[in-house]
């Protein structure tokens, strides 16, 4: 009987795992089916390298969109990484228990705020601040998007990095203290390096969240499809482009296919980031085997 139960459980788990893979594959197939017909209207080289996105005139250069996405994401990571790591270290190593008990659930709650509401805040508050601080004609810039995305990625980064740091065995900390290390030396030279793989996973998840985020960036980045030269000008991301223009396209048109092609590029980029993270993690683990 127990054997049969095992078999059934095994089968169910296998089915569930298989279904997950299947769904991802189906999404990819769907994207390819809808996006690849673009080659009939527009060839891949100018699509990938063109600096102009004029869909109504049939010009589909996605370089400004790709660079817009990368710029906003890079800015978000630059803000969220030091901040998130600092908060995680504080939570895991410094904060007294009661502060931890209040702070961590609160931070995790932030992850549940609908992105359109954060878009409001970004539009009304952060954009104004950015505009005034830098004396810009408009506050709807890549930086505004980065700030909002950093805010959205922070709960993920903090929560997972905190778990990773806390999972480091006390043995290591005690060994370090016993050698005369201070708490800060221990954190810097032992605890954080020992938690590096978990922290890296946290960062990668944060990046994944940032690059795929649509609603907030659409609302706060100004949506000008030009190649950005500074972080203080409006940009348009791949995600915002798809969201904004999908409703205006006729199914099967060149514009429709172009938006799906943008989706393919986005998919590939996220897959590359994830694979890169996996590789780094793997190499780190191997180093200490």
């Amino acid at each position, binding site marked *: 009987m127990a054997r049969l139960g095992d078999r059934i459980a095994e089968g169910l788990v296998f089915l569930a795992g298989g279904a997950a893979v299947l769904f991802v594959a189906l999404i990819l197939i769907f994207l390819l089916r809808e996006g690849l017909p673009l080659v009939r209207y527009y060839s891949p080289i100018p699509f990938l390298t063109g600096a102009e996105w004029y869909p109504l005139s049939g010009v589909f250069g996605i370089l400004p969109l790709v660079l817009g996405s990368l710029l906003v994401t890079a800015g978000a990571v630059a803000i969220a990484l030091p901040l998130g790591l600092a908060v995680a270290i504080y939570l895991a190593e410094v904060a007294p228990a009661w502060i931890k008990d209040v702070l961590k659930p609160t931070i995790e709650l932030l992850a549940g705020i609908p992105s359109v509401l954060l878009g409001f805040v970004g539009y009304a508050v952060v954009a104004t601040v950015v505009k005034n601080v830098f004396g810009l004609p408009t506050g709807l810039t890549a930086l505004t998007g980065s700030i909002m995305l950093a805010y959205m990625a922070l709960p993920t980064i903090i929560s997972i990095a905190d778990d990773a740091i806390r999972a480091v065995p006390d043995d*290591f900390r*005690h060994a*370090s*203290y*016993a050698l*005369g290390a201070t708490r800060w030396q221990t954190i810097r*030279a032992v605890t954080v390096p020992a938690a590096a793989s978990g922290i890296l996973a946290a960062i990668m998840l944060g990046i994944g969240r940032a690059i795929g985020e649509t609603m907030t960036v659409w609302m706060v980045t100004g949506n000008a499809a030009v190649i950005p030269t500074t972080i203080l000008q409006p940009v348009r991301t791949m995600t915002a482009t798809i969201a904004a223009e999908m409703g205006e396209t006729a199914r099967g048109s060149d514009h429709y296919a172009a938006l799906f092609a943008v989706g393919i590029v986005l998919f590939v980029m996220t897959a590359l980031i994830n694979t890169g993270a996996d590789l780094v993690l793997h190499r780190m683990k191997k180093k200490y*085997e």
Partner: protein
Amino acid sequence: MDQRIEVRIVGVSLYYGKFLALRHIDLDVPANQITAIIGPSGSGKSSLLRTINRMNEVIPGSRLEGQVLVSGQSIYAQNVDVVEVRRKVGMVFQRPNPFPQSIYDNVAYGPRIHGIKEKRALDDIVERSLRRSALWDEAKDKLRKSALALSGGQQQRVCIARALAVDPQVLLMDEPASALDPIATLKIEDLMRELRQAYTVVVVTHNMQQAARVSDWTAVLMPALDRAGELIEFDKTAKIFTNPSDKRTEDYITGRLG
């Protein structure tokens, strides 16, 4: 006794919160000897060991009364830097706990945090420490490999090398062989006898044969009725194991107690 005393524990009581873990311990640890602390579980052996490098302070709510002197200096005095105490009094833990870093980085960790940066100096310290912990021949070709790739006994010797690298006067060992197989255990014991030449060694062990084999002096701790650990006897190891003066010591070492 014309022995020089390296560590002097004077009237030490240790509390964890309200719980009294050690009651009024007086113990003089002779220099360049191996002193074993034995006693049943819960008698405060590890706690007593940790008062000598102030590692008891890592546990929140711990409080110490009395004094501990290392080379004549009170280590709990107001103006004493705990970093300096722990540099002078090294420690090896029960479970081998090398950092998840290379063998070299493990051994160089202490010197580095105390400000040594030149590669030449670090190389020298690493080699000298690994030689002293009898690991050099096995490890010299894989210094850049992870310390976690070593066997348990080798890992423990990395930990010993790491402790020696900051050039301590006293080496505390908290059941250093309890997680190791018999052969690795004998190696660690041989090593302890070597280390005695240069260091004062205090070792906690629950293994009576080990205490008898390796130590020169033995302190016996026993929990009182309120579970507070008390020092019931301290003498030459040979005397403790052949002709103890306290009945409880005899009962404990012959296996009738604890």
